């Protein structure tokens, strides 16, 4: 049986400052090596100063993954030499001398599959290496330390996945969960990275390192299974090894054996005293934690009668569920859920579009009210949306500007119905035997009125004509 285990690295991108100093956690906006200080540069004499907020956020992740939390949290040093590591050791967490990382064993349910979480740990991200030069002879390595010391949470799973599809489902759920907790923005470049270990029946465990995005993680796992199966089918043994993900060629490459022999000489980081996780701190965190995705979904279904599928889509995306929460009331909830999932999602489907959008929860509420009061049709609402997204103008202005007001005048409408009936004689014939064709004729009326025709009145008029 194929076994896949994951190590997910998620940056706590929403924190104000780095893990051990007051430099910005959001390093992305800075020119190279301008978001640094003696502490994150590991200058002689500097000491780490723990960011308590990072511990709180990491603990929230652990709680959301149903992990146990330790009585005391400790940090360890992982010793190895690398140019992106200013101190030549990384401050991280470890559970081999008792559970002292922010999260112990936990689990997450995907469909009817339970994925066990081994631990959740908090650590510092190293700097970034940038390679320049075309050939290996004139290649130079540049180091940007802006990222050094930013808070990173590592989520380690047991080898409970059986195929890349489960991996993808897990990653979707996990990134929604992290976003819902407000700890991280998974869409930021480099915010999510991963290592994976993959073994097939009869083969050894292979570790894949340096996977730079969730998208590539699924690909890497898929590639690795195929590679191993191909070896296996030719009776070539699969050695236990570490492989690197080459994100340009989208393949895994065997790492030099030297890298596998690293001995990290872990020991306790004495500069950070043990941190007691008192019950009242945990209680406070639990209180502060936003409602979980599954509980949101449950509430949307039971309280507002929103269909399960719509509730699922709505609850798992923080952007849309925040919009929903801000705009809905008892009466319009279903309507708003509908507008979001059927019309709005297609308009702001990328991060960029979301950021440019001038759409607010007020527009959403107004739209639902306008539909429910019969001021405009659903169709008109759909037509109004792109304009709202673009301009952010009040709905009333847009209705006036685009002339979207509901057409319910029977006299006006019956003229148009007459037109349609005379133009579509073939369909009119069919309609007598096949009632479905009536919808086609309603559509034609809608076309002529740019969607403004009141659907109920149109239907009544059409049926009268066809009798």
């Amino acid at each position, binding site marked *: 049986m194929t076994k896949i285990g994951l190590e997910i690295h998620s940056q706590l991108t929403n924190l104000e400052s780095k893990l051990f100093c007051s430099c910005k956690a959001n390093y992305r906006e800075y020119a190279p090596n301008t978001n640094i200080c003696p502490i994150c540069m590991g200058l002689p*004499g500097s000491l780490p100063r723990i960011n308590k907020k990072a511990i709180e956020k990491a603990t929230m992740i652990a709680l959301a993954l149903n992990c146990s939390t330790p009585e005391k949290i400790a940090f360890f040093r992982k*010793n190895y030499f690398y140019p992106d590591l200013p101190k030549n050791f990384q401050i991280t967490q470890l559970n081999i001398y008792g559970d002292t990382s922010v999260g112990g064993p936990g689990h997450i349910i995907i469909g009817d599959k339970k994925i066990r979480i081994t631990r959740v740990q908090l650590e510092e991200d190293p700097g970034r290496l940038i390679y320049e030069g075309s050939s290996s002879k004139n290649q130079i390595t540049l180091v940007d330390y802006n990222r050094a010391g930013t808070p990173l949470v590592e989520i380690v799973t047991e080898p409970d996945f059986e195929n890349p599809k489960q991996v993808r489902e897990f990653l979707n759920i996990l990134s929604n969960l992290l976003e819902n907790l407000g700890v991280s923005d998974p869409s930021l470049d480099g915010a999510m990275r991963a290592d994976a270990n993959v073994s097939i029946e009869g083969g050894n465990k292979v570790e894949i390192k340096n996977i730079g995005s969730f998208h590539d993680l699924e690909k890497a796992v898929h590639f690795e299974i195929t590679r191993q199966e191909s070896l296996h089918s030719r009776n070539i043994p699969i050695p236990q090894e570490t492989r690197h993900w080459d994100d340009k060629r989208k393949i895994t490459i065997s790492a030099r054996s030297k890298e596998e022999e690293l001995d990290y000489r872990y020991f306790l980081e*004495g*500069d950070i005293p043990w941190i007691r996780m008192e019950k009242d701190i945990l209680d406070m965190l639990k209180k502060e934690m936003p409602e979980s995705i599954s509980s949101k979904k449950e509430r949307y279904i039971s309280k507002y009668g929103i269909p399960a599928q719509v509730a699922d889509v709505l609850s798992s995306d923080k952007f849309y569920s925040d919009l929903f929460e801000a705009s809905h009331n008892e009466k319009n909830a279903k309507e708003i859920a509908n507008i979001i999932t059927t019309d709005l999602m297609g308009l702001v489907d990328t991060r960029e579009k979301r950021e440019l959008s001038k759409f607010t929860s007020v527009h959403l509420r107004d739209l639902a009210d306008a539909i429910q009061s019969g001021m405009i049709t659903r169709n008109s609402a759909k037509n109004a949306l792109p304009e709202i997204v673009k301009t952010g103008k009040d709905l009333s202005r847009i209705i006036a500007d685009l002339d979207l007001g509901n057409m319910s005048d029977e006299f006006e409408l019956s003229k148009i119905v007459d037109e349609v009936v005379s133009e579509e004689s073939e369909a009119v014939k069919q309609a007598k035997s096949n009632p479905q064709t009536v919808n086609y004729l309603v559509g034609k009326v809608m076309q002529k009125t740019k969607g403004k025709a009141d659907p109920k009145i149109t239907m009544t008029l059409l049926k009268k004509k066809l009798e």
Partner: protein
Amino acid sequence: MHQVKNGDISVEEFTAKTIERIRQLDDSIHAFLHVNSDAIEQAKVIDKKIKSGEKVGDCFGMPISIKDNICIKDTKTTCASKMLQDFVAPYDATVISRLKQQDAIFVGKVNLDEFAMGLTTEFSAYGPTHNPWNVDYVPGGSSGGSAASVSAFECVASLGSDTGGSVRNPASFCGVVGFKPTYGLISRFGLISYANSIEQIGPITRTVKDTAFMLNIVSGHDSNDDTTVDNPQDYLSGIDAGIEGKKIGIIQEMVGDGIDPAVLSATKNAVTKLEGLGATCEDAHLEMVKYSVAAYYTITATEAGSNLARYDNLLYGYDLPVEGYEFNSYISKARTKFGPEVTRRMILGGFVPSAGHAGRYFLKALKVKQKLTREIEHLFKKYDYLIAPTVPILPFKFGEKIDDPIALFLVDINTVTANLTGKPAISVPFELSNGLPIGMQILANSNEDKSVLQAAHALESTVKLPEVPI
């Protein structure tokens, strides 16, 4: 300093005299690696403050020397290593900024064994410091420059660092007071780490009162060092409280095999004097002491191997072009600048905590540390203080012990306990033997630093040593 405060002499004159004395003496002592050329200018600023009636800090221009592993902004901080020969600290250590606020003047950076690893300053990459009592003898270490500069009146006080006795040992050898506080009492921010889980910055002064004065300024919680404790105290007030009725244990494992007869006799005299002050003394046992030196070297090597790993010469250090090297070969080349003792300890530090060996060495050392702590805390239920000679042997000549591991073991054995257990310990100059000082050590339980100073002050009051002959 009294004359300065009374206005008999200006800060500028006093500073000039101090600098002049350093210029005169330091050819033979070599306590200083770097003398502050701005000292006179800084003194003038303080004089101006005094004249204009502005508030002047408690130090009043007091000349202080600083061990060269503590960062002073815009000043070279070398750790007496070639590896950091060009490193200029971009910030002040917390102890430095606190002293600056009180108008101290740093007359210079003083010598040490490279990265504070050693007991004689013979491992300084810039040549050893000499003992002001007899320049043929070592000053102790690693804060040998601190102790010698205070002893030779080249400054009023110094800050050293004590990882396994590095403040107390040279204080004992140079006939001055050296104090290693409770772990966490003084911020280590800006102290270049050697073994960060057990070391502390400590003052070296000529009197216990001066140590209390220094402690009032430099101790206390620091948001830049998460290991600091918040226990505000006035160490000067009540310093003469005495030790009447106190119970004192004499640590037998520290006056046993190999002790110099002169040191043993001094210890007995100290007991007599302490009893004369109203304390009761009796023999006490700390069984784990016999493993303490091995545990100490295992833990310090492990932490040093990690703390010193950052010196890869990529960001600072000394001039060595990177062209033509791959990363690993460059740092291997760069790191050949470390001296022999540092290299030895880092090799050891790569081994004792490594996979497959940690169980036999590093983890065992941690166990010793834990047991020793439990044992000493048990003793402190019964005793207010524990005493022992600071070093069981007398100061020795250059080259005499550097290759004799047993002798060096004896140099460490009485001091490492305070570091491994985090307890405060002070060395008070007590007697001379053939013109060489012997220091007596007093230990107390954690956060009893004030009480240690009271006992030290009481013992000091029974002592009158001749002036240093230099």
